[in-house]
């Protein structure tokens, strides 16, 4: 018998503390919404019409209820309440974003001390009620190989069958958390947090919202926020698409609105879930090789990367679904393509800057005259220029007035301060209409007198 054993398994308390530490409360809530969306996706991946999720958030409780199909008792037993996805778990095969088997539990632990999860799915209707404090102390005795009895952590949850006294009248999920953790209670009573959360949901889940899912936050219906690129008959974005293993990718990059530096950069969707937003860091290629670091001159740059896979594990998602696993082979293979897209677009944006004081009005003109396409539309849009298909890997830039640029490049600005009384008398003497005009006249005079 093996006797030299040092126990290495984690305590439940440590585990709960660790998994809840690195996720923000907003992300924990959105993680629960992801579960509802995964359910909606199983019902109909084309449209979510008729499906809804209702969030109730206040200083006493957190409730999320949906009519997105629920999950079966078997799923609950094998996966939903297990920590980590077992090796034997069937492949998801339906373009979901839940994959690590950590999301729901982590979110619930993060929010409060008591939670109740009710699920109704065809013939199954059951409920799991958990008092986190009691659960974390729960132990069980096991008999070891040498017949001694050892007490170990008991990680199991209990469920109750529901006959007809449940909350759910249709297939779906109802989750209620009470005994809110103090910091969560503080946030949930802050109206600023609630409106920030609404913004986050509207941006991060915009695909699902635009696909017809209704999300209500404290009875208010949320609308998908659009991420837009400018397109026109004479200017089309760079695009590329292909497959790596079973991951389908599509890159669309071009110009977006001016004046919103926070919207500039790369957006990355994994199975239609926005996981990277307006990124301007090395993660998306900025400042690597020939690509310059982000600068306000590039404020109009917008790039969208769509990654889709039936097997979620193959996507470069992180467990918090915020950011990308940059070491993944899939992402490493796509990043050069993203940089390729940036080469042409950033060069064009640099050229706009050379227009000097006319640059801003030119940028404004582009925004006003070009039409806008949202990230959702761009995912499946086929681009055409004058009736012929637009080639991959080419950014067709709006025409620039090269004359203006050439003129700006060949002139410099000279400035100096002068005594006002003397300047006024010189201005009068030279019959100059303005000080600027006086500057031109005196410079010309100098050149003429010196024979330059």
């Amino acid at each position, binding site marked *: 018998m093996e006797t030299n054993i040092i126990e290495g398994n984690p305590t439940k308390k440590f585990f709960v503390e660790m998994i809840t530490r690195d996720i923000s409360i907003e992300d924990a809530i959105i993680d629960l919404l992801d579960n509802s969306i995964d359910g909606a996706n199983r019902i109909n991946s084309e449209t979510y019409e008729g499906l809804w999720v209702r969030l109730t958030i206040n200083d006493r409780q957190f409730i999320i209820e949906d009519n997105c199909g629920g999950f079966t008792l078997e799923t609950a037993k094998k996966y939903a309440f297990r920590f980590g996805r077992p090796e034997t778990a069937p492949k998801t095969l339906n373009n979901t974003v839940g994959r690590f088997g950590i999301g729901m539990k982590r979110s619930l632990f993060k929010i409060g001390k008591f939670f109740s999860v009710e699920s109704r799915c065809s013939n199954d209707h059951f409920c799991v009620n958990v008092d986190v404090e009691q659960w974390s102390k729960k132990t069980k005795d096991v008999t070891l190989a040498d017949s001694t009895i050892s007490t170990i952590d008991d990680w199991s949850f209990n469920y109750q069958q529901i006959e007809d006294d449940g909350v759910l009248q249709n297939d779906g999920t109802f989750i209620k958390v009470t005994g809110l953790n103090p910091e969560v209670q503080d946030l949930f009573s802050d109206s600023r947090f609630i409106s920030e959360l609404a913004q986050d949901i509207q941006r991060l889940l915009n695909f699902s919202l635009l696909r017809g899912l209704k999300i209500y936050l404290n009875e208010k219906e949320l609308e998908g926020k659009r991420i837009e690129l400018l397109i026109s008959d004479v200017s089309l974005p760079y695009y590329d698409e*292909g497959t790596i293993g079973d991951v389908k990718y599509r890159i669309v990059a071009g110009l977006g609105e001016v004046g919103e530096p926070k919207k500039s950069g790369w957006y990355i969707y994994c199975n239609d879930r926005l996981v990277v937003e307006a990124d301007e860091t090395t993660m998306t290629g900025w400042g690597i*090789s020939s690509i310059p670091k982000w600068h306000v001159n590039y404020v109009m740059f917008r790039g969208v990367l769509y990654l889709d896979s039936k097997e979620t594990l193959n996507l470069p998602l992180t467990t918090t679904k915020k950011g990308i696993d940059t070491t993944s082979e899939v992402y490493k*293979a796509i990043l050069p393509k993203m*940089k390729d897209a940036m*080469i042409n677009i950033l060069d064009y944006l640099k050229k706009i800057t050379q227009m000097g004081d006319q640059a801003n009005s030119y940028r404004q003109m582009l925004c006003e005259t070009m039409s806008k396409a949202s990230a959702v539309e761009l995912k499946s849009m086929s681009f055409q220029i004058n009736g012929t298909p637009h080639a991959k890997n080419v950014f067709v830039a709006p025409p620039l007035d090269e004359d203006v640029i050439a003129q700006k490049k060949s002139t410099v600005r000279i400035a100096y301060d002068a005594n006002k009384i003397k300047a006024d008398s010189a201005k009068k003497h030279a019959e100059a209409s303005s000080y600027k005009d006086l500057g031109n006249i005196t410079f010309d005079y100098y050149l003429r007198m010196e024979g330059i």
Partner: protein
Amino acid sequence: MLQSVFSRMIPLFHSEYQYIGFGGLSFTDFKIFHRELHINRMFSIECGYSMNKLEFNKPYSCIDIRVGRSIDELSKIDLSQPSIIWLDYDGCLNRDVFAELELILSRVPHGSVYLMSCNRQMKNSEGNPYTPEELQENFGSLVPLGLERNCCAEPNAPYTIRQMLELDCNNTIRDRNRLLSKKLRFKPIFNLTYEEYIGARMFTYGGVVLNDDFDDTLLHFDEFNFIGTADPYKIEIPNLTYREVMTLNQILNFLDKEQSLVDNDIVTNEEIMRYKKCYKYLPNFYDVRL
């Protein structure tokens, strides 16, 4: 020199090549490559002259003139064709050079040549050679670690430029290979320094994109002493008269006769050495009074 290498290389790939360059108004490279290498698909990218002037001056109808910035025009040309691309920049090294390098090497197929020339001076606005920190500020991650303090001063500048270009070539191909089943590699060929007639200190770097399993010995590059050198190969053309050249050609490698020319104060030993290094590749120019 380029032509002699290309004429040996091109038949190996059994392909119709296209040539892309900055032809200017003289189209020197275009004339040579069309006549000697029989390349019939040619693109000249220029932005300093009008389309009419360029069209008027182009020597052959097969040259497709593209007016615009090189990066824009390069992205519009189909680079999936076997290509020889020589970007002969007027200025010094800048980030755009790398952007174009990456654009090209992420597209061209097996057997294609990427070549660039630029002024090799690497100086800041005050006219001093860049320090490694200044270089890093201007070129970011393109700058390798561990450069010496005087990395941008002559004669180190061409070593630094070559190192930066070679790293970017290899990295671009490495990135590209992630999506390819048949892997590619970049084989450096040219690493040359020379002075232009107006005194500009120039540097030329380039190489060929090959299938990873391609047998390099087929290229027979070992017959050229200027290929794949670790140190930049210095092209120094001696200032010799027509009569001196004719005489030298007749007696070349007859050491006693060479010495007699030196003893008679007609040419120097150094001029003979330089002449031997480059005489096979020297074009003939004559001033003719019309």
